[in-house]
């Protein structure tokens, strides 16, 4: 048994972003699936959560994710006009943009992103993840502080 030599890197260097993605069942989740089937490479920084529609994502979900230490939150839905529920993504757009404005006050607005990805855009999905990961890497870690539970 030979143990791997301990790599002496600083905390900053070994840090990888932790992104939460809400993907709509009908388009973006299928798009992510296509990216997988087509063996398109994208960084393993994203955790995908399937929701039935992008408008299912409440502002409180986003705030909770950021509060609990997610470095970025991505909401992906169908293109405008393609929504399975007719106008769900229009509602989502209003909601997410409002949440973004609220987050501006806290300086976290760049950590939230809304993208339209259809089921045939596997390539686009991988590109969005790459781009968002780079952006979050530039921004650095989520500034929320750890709070002791029994404070």
């Amino acid at each position, binding site marked *: 048994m030979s143990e791997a030599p301990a790599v002496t890197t600083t905390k900053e260097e070994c840090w990888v972003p932790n992104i939460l993605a809400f993907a709509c069942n009908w388009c973006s989740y299928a798009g992510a699936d296509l990216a997988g089937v087509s063996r398109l490479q994208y960084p393993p920084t994203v955790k995908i959560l399937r929701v039935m529609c992008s408008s299912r994502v*409440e*502002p*409180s979900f986003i*705030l*909770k994710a*950021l*509060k609990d230490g997610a470095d970025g939150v991505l909401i992906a839905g169908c293109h405008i006009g393609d929504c399975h529920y007719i106008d769900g993504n229009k509602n989502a757009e*209003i909601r997410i943009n*409002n*949440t973004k*404005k*609220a987050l501006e*006050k*806290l*300086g*976290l607005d760049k950590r939230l992103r809304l993208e339209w990805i259809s089921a045939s855009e596997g390539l686009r999905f991988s590109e969005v993840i790459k781009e968002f990961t780079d952006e979050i890497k530039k921004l650095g870690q989520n*500034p*929320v*502080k750890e*709070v002791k539970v029994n*404070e």
Partner: protein
Amino acid sequence: MRRVSKTSPRSSIYNANVYGLDTKDIWTCLTCGLCPIGCPQQVDFLSFIREERAGKEPLEVAHLGVFTEFAELSSKLDGVKPEKSDSKYGYFPGCVDQLGLFLHDVKTDFGEITTSSLKLLDKLGIKPQIMNMKCCGHDVLWQGKKDVFDRLKKLNLKYIKESGIDTLITSCAECYRTFSKDYDMGIKVVHTSELLDKLGLKINADVTYHDSCRLGRHMGLYDAPRKALTANGVTVKEMEHSKENALCCGVSNFMNCNEQTKALRIARMNEAEATGAKTLITTCSKCLAHFNCLKNEKDAVKKYDMDVVDLTVYLARKLDENVKKEGPALDSSKMENI
């Protein structure tokens, strides 16, 4: 304990203190403060509810707790430094921005409260510095999240100390209550309604005034908002229940939004309608949100032909109208002379 109703304050105290039960009642309470008014023994029921709630999980928080999450998120972030200013007055807008953004379907411009207040303060010759603080923590405190409240309080107190103000002005009844009673800052806290009686407007209109629980029963400020209206020529038509007996708007600190609270809102709006006035004035941004929510409901049970506006917004609108009318007003005085 059979003789008391389900929502009796007595049963919740009895169950919690005598039986040690974790009762639902402590979460259904609206903390409007109507029970202590009627209590012959002067039991401090509000403090009981607050202490009992501390550290426990709420049964239900309206709007999926988006305001609570926002407060918690901001409590974990560093605050900003105050901008350099010589003004001894500080104006805190409260969370009107978030209210407007997260309650966009209520169709109310909450930001107008801030602009109106500043306009009126400017008219009175007060140029305050805008306090870019965190949430005052009122909601989280009453939802039992004492730790979050303490973090917010620490950040806010630091900000206030650095800004060097000696009077904090706020136009929100809840902020006023929290800064006055739960902060111990040693500086003066003023609600905008206490300053507005010197505006010198001449408004000829009938309105009715809703006493918000935080400003009224919690802080005992009944006459200041009325004076702010009557001193400017407005006739205040009192509702059936007013001042210390005023009915609650139904939802305090974003805890309950259900059939019962809706019934309370309808009861209050009916009372307001019965006065015959076409405008309902409030001093709390949450009362404003809840009445307007009822008014703008899609399948409303009853249509209310009534404006629900904040005191500062109402006065600022009238001030603007006066400025526009100044020309014709002079003409009419000339007519009288002739």
